[in-house]
């Protein structure tokens, strides 16, 4: 029997970026909040031995323990889905701060095109341009409506970026709060080459602070040290914006946050119309606890947001055969295997130095910034050079034809250890009727709850996009004058083994129409007005940027919606 606790105004499930932002906004407004986090607490003092490539980057010290919980995966419905038994394609956050504690901090607002992708595509190319089965739809919000919330996230995190407005991206109401990151020789070579080709390069906006910064909540953080142990690692300096050093301490200081770590939520309780609370397991004692609440906020990352709604039977599950239903719909990922690698025989770069978000990018081939009339794909990608710190176990580039071990491998990998620069594309992933999330019929987690099943593959849309963007990256690399270069543009089936990116999206998508979306523009569920489902689960497709800028903006918007709802009740739109 579960222990039942007294009712609280708000319970938040998952204390990463989305949960942290919402906790801080609500508690500052005087609302009492319970924050449930399945993992442990964290502080920067945990990162005393952080510069350990093996432990953090290869043994996934900070990520979800897959022995307790994972996902299952198949490329299509004909295959038997099998568990992701060991890490590969994406790395799931766990513990206070979630993946926000070990992210890179690369920051990019989605484009105005993204939020109105269907309308704008039809407007420019006609409806026939959208292939059958591709389920792109407008998000129910425009870039201009979301702009103030991007701004809010940037001020909280102290995003470092260029003062000048880049012509290829959405208009900003304010400059970035801190100046851009430093420019390395590799970044300069890339930007010079891109300018020669008449593109519009810029320094990637960064959540690794370029200088000491005090945010509007009074949080002061140190500048980035370019220490090169950033993505997959925690920042010992607190320079990387992380919920643990930004929003969570603000919420705690109000005295209104009751933060409970080691609390794994297994169910959302509801009466068919509204949620009444959640059930969680104290993972230390094994005790099952019921926490009644007036309002439930789901911020347990894309995958568990979907899974918990499905296991709790809240909202209409998506049916891929009819395309009806919404929970699990429009799962998308990131198309980023297009690359151009340059080997520079007579140059050495300090690429072992770096920061998670250090780099430069062009958006000339992102979104609909270029004419797609004669192209057989939609959307695009950013092309970027990043210098995140080339660590020696994972970074051993050798020219094609070199064996992967032995004398030649040793010689070539030493030769090119500091003489290789890579341009990579980070592309949009558009949704299809047959790509979706549902519950696995066979495999369960440590608490007996079914695992989430991913059905996903690459389509010709992705292959064409990838090829086109890799060719453009190759042209830029050529301008950078390498001794040799290799362009990789082939894309077969989606494979869950190699790391690609932790940019899973969709499943509880936002929109203006309850029959085709699960949440409204405040991320309030159409089917349960006191449930807000926040995160990249709300993305109707994935754009050509890292997701957290848009997740952050949507979280601030949801927080505003929640405060409104607490006052007035009912559907907010």
């Amino acid at each position: 029997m579960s222990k039942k606790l007294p009712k609280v105004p708000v319970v938040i499930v998952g204390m990463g970026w989305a949960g942290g932002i919402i906790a801080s906004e609500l508690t500052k407004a005087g609302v009492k909040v319970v924050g449930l986090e399945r993992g442990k607490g964290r502080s920067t003092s945990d990162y005393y031995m952080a510069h350990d490539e093996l432990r953090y980057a290869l043994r996934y010290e900070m990520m979800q323990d897959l022995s307790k919980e994972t996902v299952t995966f198949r490329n299509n419905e004909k295959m038997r889905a099998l568990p992701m038994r060991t890490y590969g394609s994406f790395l799931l956050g766990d513990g206070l701060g979630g993946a926000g504690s070990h992210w890179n901090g690369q920051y990019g607002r989605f484009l105005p095109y993204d939020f109105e992708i269907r309308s704008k595509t039809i407007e420019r190319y006609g409806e026939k341009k959208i292939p059958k089965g591709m389920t792109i739809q407008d998000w129910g919000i425009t870039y201009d409506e979301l702009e103030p919330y991007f701004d809010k996230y940037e001020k909280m995190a102290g995003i470092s970026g260029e003062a000048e407005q880049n012509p290829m991206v959405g208009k900003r109401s304010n400059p970035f709060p801190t100046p851009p990151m430093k420019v390395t020789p590799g970044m300069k070579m890339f930007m010079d080459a891109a300018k020669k080709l008449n593109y519009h390069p810029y320094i990637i906006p960064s959540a690794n602070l370029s200088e000491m910064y005090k945010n509007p909540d009074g949080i002061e953080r140190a500048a980035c040290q370019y220490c090169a142990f950033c993505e997959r690692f925690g920042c010992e300096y607190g320079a990387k914006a992380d919920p643990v050093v930004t929003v969570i301490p603000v919420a705690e200081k109000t005295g209104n946050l009751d933060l409970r770590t080691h609390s794994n939520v297994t169910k959302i309780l509801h009466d068919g119309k509204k949620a009444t609370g959640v059930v969680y397991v104290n993972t230390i004692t094994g005790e099952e606890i019921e926490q009644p609440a007036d309002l439930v906020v789901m911020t347990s990352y894309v995958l568990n947001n979907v899974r918990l709604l499905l296991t709790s039977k809240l909202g209409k599950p998506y049916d891929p055969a009819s395309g009806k239903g919404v929970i699990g719909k429009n799962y998308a990922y990131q198309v980023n295997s297009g690359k151009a690698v340059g080997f520079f025989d007579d140059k050495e770069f300090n690429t072992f130095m770096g920061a998670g978000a250090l780099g430069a990018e062009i958006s000339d081939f992102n979104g609909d910034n270029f004419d797609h009339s004669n192209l057989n794909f939609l959307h695009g990608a950013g092309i970027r050079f990043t210098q995140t710190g080339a660590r020696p176990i994972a970074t051993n580039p050798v020219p094609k034809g070199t064996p992967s071990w032995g004398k030649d491998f040793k010689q070539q990998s030493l030769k090119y250890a500091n003489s290789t620069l890579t341009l990579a594309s980070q592309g949009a992933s558009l949704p299809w009727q047959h790509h979706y999330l549902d519950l696995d019929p066979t495999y369960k987690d440590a608490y007996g709850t079914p695992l989430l099943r991913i059905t996903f593959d690459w389509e010709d849309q992705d292959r064409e996009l990838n090829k086109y963007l890799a060719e453009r990256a190759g042209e830029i690399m050529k301008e950078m004058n390498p001794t040799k270069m290799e362009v990789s543009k082939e894309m077969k089936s989606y494979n869950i083994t190699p790391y690609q990116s932790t940019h899973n999206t969709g499943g509880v998508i936002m929109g203006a129409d309850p029959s085709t979306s699960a949440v409204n523009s405040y991320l309030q569920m159409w089917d349960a007005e006191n449930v807000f489902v926040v995160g990249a689960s709300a993305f109707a497709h994935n754009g050509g940027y890292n997701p957290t800028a848009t997740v952050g903006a949507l979280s601030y918007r949801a927080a505003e919606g929640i405060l409104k709802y607490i006052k007035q009740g009912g559907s907010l739109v």
Partner: protein
Amino acid sequence: MADTNSKQPKSSSRREFLKNSGIALGGLVVGGVLGGSLFGSKKAEVEKVVEKSVNYNQALMFFNQEQFQLTEAACERIFPQDEHGPGAKELGVAFYIDHQLASPWGINAKDYMTGPFYPGEPTQGMQTSLKRAEIFTLGLQGLADYSKKKYNKRFTDLTEAEQDETLKVFEAGKEYQLAGTSTTGFFSLLRSMTIEGVYADPMYGGNKDMQGWKMRNYPGNQMSFAKDIEKDEFMKIEPKSLHDHMGH
């Protein structure tokens, strides 16, 4: 461009850095670098201990003697000694592999190892119920058996060329089969663990005296590159290990 950013800490020493940072919210400490434990005066003692030449780390947690010798010989072929510097053997990689196989990683402690198990498609990744330590053990036995069958010798007595040929057979996974696992699964563990053992922090048993890092001018664990990140010239920096970080 060099030092226009006066808000950067000027010195990279932790103490100096702290003076410049003030990582606090109204007295609430959010920066771990402020922790008292970082100011311990243990540095001198730690240094005394490493002066001893005995390396107590070099003993076995998992392998028997034959397995250790086999591993040492095989990983030396993956990353051989040459004019650039030491190979896997001298770097202590076989000790590294031994220690890893004895660790939680060797028994897949953080992997989803619940059945049912099916072979799966290549896109679905690792689907075996065998643990890494088991796969490695079976693979080593395979190396011993194959050498005996093909050359009538022990793997460790083969010429370098014969050892390379044997490893190529295991890498390709066609000519010779293992019961219960694949030679390719074993080979990819051998390869990846060898590279790890060459370049992981020396505390794990390989990368002896940071020689793996030195061969490629990798400086290991440094506190800050803020002063140097913009520089054009290549920086050769004396490497530091995590051990050097103790007592900071």
